[in-house]
């Protein structure tokens, strides 16, 4: 079965410093992986997706993620955090049937 583990439930960074949100996946074959963001009282928004075309994936709002098969990781990064990046972030994998399988989420806090 395909699943993801988000290694940190909370991450706190200062505005202007790099962001790293960690995700490991478990899959018997090359998975499709995604990062979603959820701002308070708002819907889920797709940040980026990996579908085996390129290992470094660029998303919206300056986020990117690198697929590393040897480490079974798909960490989300951003060079410089902005206050508006404060939100809940979900790493997601697709098992069979096209439904999304979500991690437990990482809450990102950005301090001035």
């Amino acid at each position, binding site marked *: 079965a395909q699943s993801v583990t988000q290694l940190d439930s909370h991450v706190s960074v200062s505005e202007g410093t790099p962001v790293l949100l960690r995700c490991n996946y478990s899959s018997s074959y090359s998975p*499709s992986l*995604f990062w979603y963001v959820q701002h308070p009282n708002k*819907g889920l928004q797709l940040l980026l997706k990996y*579908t085996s075309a390129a290992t470094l994936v660029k998303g919206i709002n300056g986020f990117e993620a690198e697929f590393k098969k040897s480490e079974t990781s798909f960490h989300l990064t951003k060079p410089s955090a902005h206050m508006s990046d404060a939100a809940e972030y*979900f790493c997601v994998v*697709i098992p069979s049937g*096209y*439904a*999304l399988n979500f991690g437990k*989420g990482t809450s990102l806090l950005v301090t001035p």
Partner: protein
Amino acid sequence: EAGVAQSPRYKIIEKRQSVAFWCNPISGHATLYWYQQILGQGPKLLIQFQNNGVVDDSQLPKDRFSAERLKGVDSTLKIQPAKLEDSAVYLCASSSGGEGYGYTFGSGTRLTVV
């Protein structure tokens, strides 16, 4: 294009009462999903429809939850009777098919059971 519409946005009921949620997917999207998101957790799939047929309802508590998608468009999710642990945000999503492509979420219905 219009997004995935859900109603109501908020609902407060007493335990043992019944409640229904409605979802109108993006026009033309054949696949519709209902997810349950308990506070502090990631969304969990309850049921997946392909047109008006059920693809996966393995995580739907069928003794109290039911869902239908008549005519392959709108969908309703019902809980009867509700329990305190059903308090959550219920998210509807639709997709045009294929792995993760064209996936759009609604804003959700926040249910509080007291």
